[in-house]
């Protein structure tokens, strides 16, 4: 059972990275539950990450499909200077650890890195950190993302950061 869940979680995370890299925004959104949370905390200081998004600053705190759709709309709006052109991104994920698993809920962790290449300036950046995913099995048996927390270790942003750069 756990092997099956672990495999499904692994596939889901790999698929999520692929959909981001290929800019398949609708398919990516469909991986998330309707009320999912996408959270990128900031660092409070050299050692501690923010842990309370209600009183501490986040890089991004995006709630539900509504919030995620807004970010997709912004990223694909050709009037937006930051979106034209979009950089090419490649995600690289480390092995996925199954941190906990119940019948219909799993928690995973893995390392991630991205290469963000801007074809206009020919500048490349790399961001890295780790993901914590909460994955819920729906009534149809498929696993979807209930919560994704992205930690970015190199938090001095080079120009700008969007949800698919990380």
């Amino acid at each position, binding site marked *: 059972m756990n092997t099956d869940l672990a495999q499904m979680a692994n596939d889901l995370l790999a698929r999520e990275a692929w959909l981001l890299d290929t800019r398949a925004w609708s398919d990516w959104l469909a991986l998330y539950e309707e009320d999912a949370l996408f959270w*990128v*905390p*900031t*660092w*409070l*200081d*050299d050692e501690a990450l*923010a842990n309370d*998004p*209600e*009183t*501490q*600053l*986040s*890089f*991004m*705190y995006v709630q539900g499909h509504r919030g995620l759709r*807004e*970010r997709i*709309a*912004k990223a694909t*709006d050709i*009037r*937006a*200077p*930051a*979106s034209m052109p979009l950089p090419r991104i490649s995600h690289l994920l480390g092995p996925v650890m199954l941190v906990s698993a119940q019948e219909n809920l799993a928690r995973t962790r893995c390392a991630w890195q991205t290469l963000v290449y801007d074809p206009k*300036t020919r*500048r490349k950046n790399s961001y890295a950190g780790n993901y914590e995913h909460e994955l819920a099995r729906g009534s149809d048996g498929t696993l979807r993302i209930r919560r994704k927390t992205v930690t970015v270790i190199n*938090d*001095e*942003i*080079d*120009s*700008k*950061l*969007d949800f698919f750069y990380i």
Partner: protein
Amino acid sequence: MHDAQQVNNNLRTSRLLNDEPDRFLVDRDIYRDEEIFELEMKHVFEGTWNLLGLASQIPEAYDFFTTHIGRSPIVVSRDRAGELHAFINSCRHKGATVCHKQQGKTRAFVCRYHGWTYSIDGRNTGIKDRAAGEYPPSFDEQSHDLEPVKRFANYRGFLFGSLNEDVPPLEQAIAQLKPFLDLIADQSPYGVECIPGRANFVYHANWKLQLENGVDPYHFTSTHPSYMQVLKGRNAAEASVYSALDPQALERGTFSLGSGHNVMWGPIPSRDARPLAAMEQELEERVGPVRTKWMFFARNVTVFPNAQFAENAALQLRIWRPLAVDRTEMTTYCLAPIGEPREARLQRIRQYEEFFNPSGLATPDDVANYEDCQRGFAARQVRWQQGHQRGSQRSTSEISNAAQEIGVVPVASAIGGFNMGDETVMQETYREWLRLIVSGARKEIA
């Protein structure tokens, strides 16, 4: 590097500004020339008052934060008696920085290299093996304290420092800026604080692109329509201050406030959508209806040369440090009234993230534009920037009703519809910029 005499000659010919009554143009070299950058660092940033931060960042004894004035690393600290200090973050012995964190708390600074120690106020408290050191007699005549910032002053919790001691008193330098600092400090009976969490970034363009953009109303409808589109899609319950923006219906004003400081201000729709709305009644009672009205205006205030307060839905303090002629570091803070109700604080943080973060829905578009400008500046044959002329017909030294009601005497003002998109506000700032460089360069050769 030209010698000071040659530099002075160049500057005396006003090569950099075409400052005629009907034609104010700046030479694009001010954004792209490395020698001018060097002059700015020395005579502007390191020549006058800079904003260092807020006293509320260091509320307790032994607290500190670090920042820069120009190229100089600085520590700002609170001692055990509650007094504030600002000094250079460089061991007096061989120069290593002794404070290694952006902020924190410590009883003492210890240089990791040869062990010299300093108290929280920067005084030297120990020289390792001093007695055995066979120092020359003159050694005792030399101060071994961390060098104090030459001028350091606190206006209502806003901390300022100057590496140049030959500057007017702070009260004089910020005389017309004060009413706008007051509009921030007085949002709560207890002042404002920084929300914990860092969202800093570096962009690949000159610092003056941020300086100008902060008080540039003209860019909003062409740079941020994608953000406006996102807001339009929300229902009334999630309204943001710009959800109902109709540029035709709004007024915008700019004031030049002396010493390079300036402000862009004006009403914004959806007053109810602001976090500050939760405190509206208390504000009216404590500061009166006129100042409350101004607190609900969008206000972007330049604290020349190194910072801006930008306020619309939420309030940002942004401090920039030029790293190179085409590279700028931004340190940004979400400020909030101390004692703000929890719900309003939560709304403020989300609105701040959305608009002001380098990971948000608006600031990245500004940054993309700055970098495009820097790329365009590489064309040396295009000399004159045409970017400081809008609003010329409305620019005046007369004191408007708006200035009178907020208690300020601007050096220059331009008030009109939102679509006027005033650019003249930068003229007085550039005059001050040039004045600092010329007077600084002259003193060097004197």
